[in-house]
């Protein structure tokens, strides 16, 4: 009797396991996208004629945004509005979060269909573009935009499409969100203290000295626990000294000799001046993010060098009479970079070249990149748009104006993350971080950069 019961138990277990496998949703088996991707090894170009109207199609769109972020709200609105215009197109959006590339990698290897992804444009360059699996958009860009007046290409701020083009110049990344870098401060605090915005490095130093000696406020706050925040000083200084691309070139120089250019050492020395003179708030080396930026909100620090997302990020934490002000990185005497040379940190879309809904994607993206739709995003997110005709969010007026006047746009971290990602992380950021907080001297920094650059290339 007991034996029968036992076998019954085992049987039930097996049945329930099998049942749970098959009871899972009525999802169709994912198309074997892998085979097709191998076939379509040559780049596919996005066609410009639309498919027959009325045929129901689905675009699977995985996004780096989280559900709760303002971007998700706007994207949902775009999708809703687009549905009214094109009811036969269904856009399945999944708000994956910042791990979107990890998930896409996993899902696609399992054969799942994903048509469209958005994430930081340099990440797209370092993944889809590098592997050649992205849908090229050049033809679509030359065709008219959503309203049909001008080529789509012309809606974008000059340089933002080319910034992440493939090595052969073909554009696959449609960047829509534009973040830049500069100093943030409280206009009211500065007004009350009579401080003025510096336009040269020497003026900046003088201002810091004034702030330090005449008040209890720390001149500069820094989340010095985050190595990529610290790097903002380095690539900005290098850009102003010798123009963009120097760090990138030095990273790519297998002999390591480029690091002997005196500008690299000078940059570290300039950074160290800020610490040695006490302009950077005490204890910053031990700050855990976001301890540093919080000092800006409480009025304990006068300014912070950061990305232009900062005002939005802190908007719920600042007091009611806080007035956001921003100014670009000042020029350095004797350097070639102008004050209007600005960082262009982009977030954008790319499609996979094995997608079956290329024309639909193009149409949807054109819809999303009209000035009206982009303005919604600007208003919600306080980030600028790459689309001309949108305005600058009031909080980052100073930086936005410099951007629009700019003749030179450079990539964050001098383009290192997408070009040599492991070098960027394991050699450059590693050593810059300790040089910045003073654990090694500028000379030691140059020596170790030379040595480790050579080692890096030997190990490739």
């Amino acid at each position: 009797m007991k034996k029968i019961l036992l076998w019954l138990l085992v049987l039930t277990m097996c049945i329930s396991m099998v049942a749970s496998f098959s009871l899972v949703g009525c999802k169709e088996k994912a198309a074997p996208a892998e085979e097709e991707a191998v076939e379509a090894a040559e780049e596919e170009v996005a066609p410009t004629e639309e498919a027959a109207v009325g045929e129901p199609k689905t675009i699977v769109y995985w996004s780096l945004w989280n559900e709760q972020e303002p971007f998700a709200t706007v994207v949902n609105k775009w999708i809703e509005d687009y549905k009214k215009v094109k009811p036969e197109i269904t856009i399945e959006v999944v708000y994956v979060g910042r791990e979107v590339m990890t998930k896409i990698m996993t899902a696609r290897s399992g054969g799942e269909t994903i048509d469209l992804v958005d994430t930081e444009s340099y990440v797209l360059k370092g993944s889809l573009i590098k592997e050649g699996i992205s849908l090229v958009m050049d033809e679509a860009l030359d065709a008219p935009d959503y309203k049909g007046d001008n080529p789509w290409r012309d809606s974008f701020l000059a340089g933002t499409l080319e910034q992440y083009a493939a090595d052969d110049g073909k554009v696959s990344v449609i960047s829509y969100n534009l973040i830049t870098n500069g100093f943030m401060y409280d206009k009211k605090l500065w007004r009350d203290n009579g401080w003025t915005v510096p336009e040269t490095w020497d003026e900046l130093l003088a201002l810091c000295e004034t702030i330090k000696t005449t008040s209890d406020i720390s001149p500069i706050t820094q989340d010095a626990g985050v190595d990529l925040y610290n790097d903002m000083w380095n690539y900005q200084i290098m850009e102003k000294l010798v123009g963009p691309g120097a760090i990138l070139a030095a990273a790519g120089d297998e002999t390591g000799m480029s690091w002997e250019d005196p500008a690299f050492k000078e940059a570290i020395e300039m950074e160290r001046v800020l610490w040695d003179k006490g302009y950077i708030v005490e204890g910053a080396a031990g700050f855990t993010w976001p301890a540093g930026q919080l000092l800006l909100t409480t009025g304990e620090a006068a300014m912070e060098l950061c990305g232009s997302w900062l005002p939005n990020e802190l908007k719920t934490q600042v007091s009611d009479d806080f007035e956001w002000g921003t100014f670009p990185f000042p020029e350095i005497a004797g350097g070639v970079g102008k004050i209007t040379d600005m960082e262009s940190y982009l977030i954008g879309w790319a499609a996979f070249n094995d997608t079956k809904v290329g024309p639909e994607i193009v149409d949807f993206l054109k819809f999303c990149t009209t000035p009206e739709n982009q303005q919604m995003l600007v208003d919600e997110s306080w980030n600028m748009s790459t689309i001309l005709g949108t305005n600058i969010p009031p909080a980052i007026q100073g930086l936005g104006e410099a951007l629009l006047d700019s003749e030179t746009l450079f990539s964050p971290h001098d383009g290192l993350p997408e070009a040599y990602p492991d070098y960027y992380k394991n050699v450059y950021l590693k050593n810059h971080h300790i040089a910045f907080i003073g654990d090694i001297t500028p000379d030691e920094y140059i020596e170790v950069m030379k040595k480790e650059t050579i080692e890096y290339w030997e190990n490739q």
Partner: protein
Amino acid sequence: MKRRRYIAWIFLAPSLIMYLYFFVYPTIEAIILSFYKASGFTQNPEFVGFKNFSKLISDDSFLAALKNTLLLLVIGGIGIFLIAFIFSLLLGSGIKGKKVYRTIIFFPFIIAPVVHSIYWGLLVYNPRKGMLNQFFKLLHIEALAKFTFTEPKYVLWSVIFIVIWVSVGFYLILLMAGIERIPPYLYEAARIEGATELRMFFNITLPLVKEVLVIAIIFWGINAVKMFDLLYAFGGILPPRALWTNAIYLYIMGFGKRDPIFQLGYASAIGVVTLLLVIVISFIIRKLIRREIYEY
């Protein structure tokens, strides 16, 4: 009635099937991948033989990660077990409120790691307004009042302390479970013979909790080497380099958070090395604490 040998296989079957199909087979694929150069998106991985492994040996970041993993394992382990033993002694000496204390000490273990990283990073270790620095300021110990607990030089130690603080309750419960199985009459007999508390600990308690101790230590060993969530969440945006252990480094090189490194083959090699590390460590632990089973 003779025992039928094949019945054992029936007992083994369900777990073995799941294990083989959903675990061993993927593991073999992952191990094979360590001999290739592959990004997650590529269609054609490139065979490179042992190149990933030789790269690992000369990779400073990997060696640093290995060192951090071992530090976490050893220092964390010593801290946890030392404190857990002390607490088990304190709680075992018949004081009131034993269950309450045990629950309180255990509590941090069930709180999500994200909360710990925020609380400790921003509130306790914050050089400007954090609890620790304020506390030392009150005591007028200048050196410690300005100490930056979470700067790169010290952050690993600070986080190891957090790990100890979070985990000690769990291991305490395990140990106490083992200690409570010891029949009280052994202690009675020893006390009559005039033994001190300390001698009773070393001669009765310690030998008899060996089984539980081995399980606990191996559990800690595995968790220390694979520890991810707390370290990944510390520092908010990105885990600071000083906290990189094998597990974190693997993730960064393979999947990255905002860094398009995507070197899956290399990451798999790190995984293989980690696996070997765990096997070696388990072996060492077993040898060090030879298992004896006391039946009573």
